């Protein structure tokens, strides 16, 4: 049985292509149907004909699908029509009828169309939102403040929600917007009498997992701390099943152009599909990456963490992450900063933390404990590490035309004192058109992708260690990558490409270009993480459109740091620049309801916690389900706000303080545990996997 769904929309002009991208990634077949208007008088245009929305013909047509999805939503409850044509479908409840998925549906009391109101089920248990009586028909969510950005289209400015799923008994942070008015998110109000009747009415349909006509699917999770005063009445619901219709929060942005990793609500699409019994051909692998797994940052205010303290934070967190990966059968792949053995004296970087005499013995010992966790994790497959080099020229691969004063390694094939090519030859001619007797004595064949050229008159390194290295050739790439791998070997790793995954996350997400991809393939890599512009700031090269070059993967990236610049000062930090804390970085201070209340109302910290987790979980899930990419964070940059004596404690507001007397927050633990909750909620759709699974899946669904 092939999974198949029907998407109903009003027009393609503002249709978010992520709807279909996600379905393709899941291997779910789909059909698009267009409604000719927003009213009950609309016709539904299907590939098999145009049907009246109330017609038996349409009902019969729908029965071939596992689910029918209503794609449209609005942020204006005063609107008199949007999906009025769907009202008839709420009465199509036979076992042969499909599930209907409504995401942030418009069923406002402002709809005056008599055909809508007379056909609206009288026993429907969610109170219809009334724009003239918001307080009596909806519950304001997430503090009830107006959003800093337009809700429903922004890629930052997420809203917070901790949701309890009663049937699964799981709490998860997922952005949940049931209705919107005046840019404020709302949850729904339940008519408890009607719900009680439905919940005791026997109903037979494959999606009625409790055998009843009504089921509460999700509610705001009750607070876990007395500080958290953001509570909701018992009749407040986030998601509900009415017979075979699912009333769910918004699933995707109302934007046309973002079939990528910026769809913050898509949890609800996955959850809805799962509830509807749509069994995808493929599950999606969930995995996490980090950059700079061992690094030190400043020791100054406000935390004043000594280097040994920072290493202690990393040691505890990495020990926990390694254990997490072991239990979930995932691999947290890490871009380990290399190049510092030869090309950088920055004592904050990996090699120098371990071996620089500028570090005290205690500091080196503390760093070595972190390092040993990574090496052991690499060998067992839980924390595999790969090269990640910020020391070449400007930044990452081919970040500038020339890496001035480049210092190479010793030995191996491209190290000193070997005299090796450092740039393309002055003359390069394809072998099939190369005249006899023309090529110089130093001629050699160089292949990059499909192009093979005979090069001669090639600039070489001489026997020295230091020289200016033109960065844009396969010769330069070979020297650089070999030096990086040599350093990984010297650090005790058996390889430089995350073991069997043969992957790494490139520094600054610069993958270089064809010459670097070729050289990486030669050294055994299968893929790397790469930004669309793959040699910033030089900016002469973009990745191939399908991100797949001669069997080599260029995996999209997404940053999940809780900071925009330097290291994080926490969820929020008063009077600090916005980019130094998570709330500022992601524009989560809606109507100033965090900044204005931070020191006076403890709930503000919980609000910040919910919003940060929701924002970053949504970015991670989008990266997983839409872009099939790699999401990552920088551990020490994100972990400075933890309490050094209680590193692994979960967030508990002002009950646990960090060294700056602000709420303790461990980004690694919180992110992974919350994603674990999402994975447990979606066993049919997600699994903890690895970057290998991601690349396998890209090949499976994206083709050549």
């Amino acid at each position, binding site marked *: 049985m092939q999974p198949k769904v029907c998407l109903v929309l009003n027009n393609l002009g503002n249709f978010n292509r992520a709807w279909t991208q996600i379905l393709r990634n899941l291997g779910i077949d789909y059909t698009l149907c267009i409604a000719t208007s927003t009213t009950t008088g609309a016709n539904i245009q299907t590939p098999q004909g145009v049907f009246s929305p109330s017609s038996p013909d349409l009902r019969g047509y729908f029965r071939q699908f596992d689910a029918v999805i209503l794609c449209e939503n609005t942020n204006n409850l005063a609107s008199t029509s949007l999906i009025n044509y769907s009202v008839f479908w709420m009465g199509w409840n036979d076992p042969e009828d499909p599930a209907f998925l409504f995401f942030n549906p418009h069923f406002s009391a402002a709809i005056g169309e008599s055909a809508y109101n007379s056909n609206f089920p009288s026993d429907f248990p969610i109170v219809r939102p009334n724009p003239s009586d918001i307080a009596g028909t909806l519950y304001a969510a997430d503090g009830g403040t107006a959003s800093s950005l337009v809700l429903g289209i922004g890629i930052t400015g997420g809203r917070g929600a901790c949701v309890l799923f009663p049937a699964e008994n799981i709490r998860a942070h997922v952005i949940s917007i049931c209705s919107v008015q005046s840019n404020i998110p709302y949850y729904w109000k339940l008519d408890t009498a009607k719900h009680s009747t439905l919940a005791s009415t026997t109903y037979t349909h494959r999606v009625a997992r409790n055998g009843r006509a009504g089921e509460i699917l999700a509610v705001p999770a009750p607070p876990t701390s007395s500080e958290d005063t953001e509570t909701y009445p018992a009749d407040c619901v986030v998601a509900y099943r009415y017979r075979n219709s699912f009333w769910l929060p918004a699933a995707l942005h109302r934007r046309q152009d973002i079939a990528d990793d910026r769809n913050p609500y898509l949890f609800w699409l996955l959850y809805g599909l799962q509830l509807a019994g749509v069994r995808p051909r493929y599950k999606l692998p969930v995995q996490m990456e980090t950059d700079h797994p061992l690094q030190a940052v400043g020791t100054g205010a406000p935390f004043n963490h000594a280097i040994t303290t920072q290493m202690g934070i990393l040691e505890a967190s990495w020990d926990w992450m390694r254990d997490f990966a072991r239990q979930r059968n995932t691999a947290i792949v890490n871009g380990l900063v290399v190049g510092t053995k030869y090309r950088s004296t920055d004592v904050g970087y990996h090699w120098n933390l371990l071996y620089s005499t500028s570090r005290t013995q205690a500091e080196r010992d503390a760093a070595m404990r972190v390092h040993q966790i990574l090496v052991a994790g690499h060998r067992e497959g839980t924390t595999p590490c790969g090269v990640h080099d910020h020391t070449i020229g400007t930044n990452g691969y081919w970040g500038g035309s020339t890496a001035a004063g480049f210092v190479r390694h010793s030995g191996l094939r491209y190290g000193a004192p070997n005299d090796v090519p450092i740039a393309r030859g002055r003359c390069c*001619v394809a072998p099939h*058109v190369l005249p006899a007797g023309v090529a110089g004595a130093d001629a050699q064949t160089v292949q990059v992708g*499909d192009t093979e050229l005979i090069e001669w008159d090639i600039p070489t390194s001489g026997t020295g260690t230091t020289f200016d290295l033109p960065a844009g050739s396969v010769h330069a790439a070979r020297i650089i990558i070999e030096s990086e791998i040599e350093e990984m070997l010297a650090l005790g790793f058996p390889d430089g490409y995350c073991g069997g995954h043969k992957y790494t996350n490139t520094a600054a997400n610069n993958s270089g270009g064809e010459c670097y991809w070729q050289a990486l393939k030669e050294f055994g890599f299968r893929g790397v993480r790469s930004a669309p512009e793959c040699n910033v700031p030089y900016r002469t090269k973009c990745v191939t459109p399908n991100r797949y070059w001669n069997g080599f993967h260029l995996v999209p990236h997404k940053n999940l740091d809780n900071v925009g610049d330097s290291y994080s000062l926490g969820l929020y930090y008063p009077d600090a620049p916005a980019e130094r804390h998570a709330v500022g970085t992601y524009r989560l201070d809606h109507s100033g309801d965090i900044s204005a209340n931070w020191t006076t109302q403890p709930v503000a910290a919980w609000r910040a916690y919910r919003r940060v987790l929701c924002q970053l979980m949504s970015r991670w899930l989008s990266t997983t389900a839409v872009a099939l990419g790699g999401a990552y964070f920088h551990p020490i940059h994100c972990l400075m706000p933890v309490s050094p004596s209680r590193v692994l404690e979960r967030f508990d507001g002002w009950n646990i303080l960090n060294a700056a007397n602000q709420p303790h927050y461990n980004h690694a633990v919180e992110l992974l545990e919350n994603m674990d909750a999402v994975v447990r909620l979606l066993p049919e759709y997600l699994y903890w996997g690895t970057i290998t699974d991601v690349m396998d899946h890209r090949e499976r669904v994206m083709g050549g």
Partner: protein
Amino acid sequence: MPVRFLRNASELADVSWETPLPVQVANAKPVPADTLLVATTTVTADANRDLLGSAATELPTLDGCMQYRKLVWFYFRASAADTTYRVLARATDQNGAPLGAGWQEIAPATPLPGEANSWNRIEIPATTDGYYDQYRIEVRLTAGNSYTLTSKIVGVR
């Protein structure tokens, strides 16, 4: 143990040169163009200097080009110093030997277009089709100081 595959609906075949495994080309589209040359030339006043720096007049710059209808020469010149270019071409026999001595001059010495630090493009031949076996492309400084000319030549079928 030979590797076998279902050659058609009912026939099992051993993998061999005559019956290779069926494959589907992925991530590759037929492109009727090949990169033939990438070169950095120091343009001087020397006579008969080609893009590869050779002054041996009988040596082609490119050989075996019969499959190409056109050569497209892209170049970036570092100076506007007065320069001429000349394109010579000829056919060979089945053994690769030129049919006769010398060359057919398909583009006589002509000012090389472009200002300093400019991108330019020349089609060879300028009109009609090529299909010559050998080409020799010469550049020569006629006034001013020598400079660097970076070229790429693409063969178009």
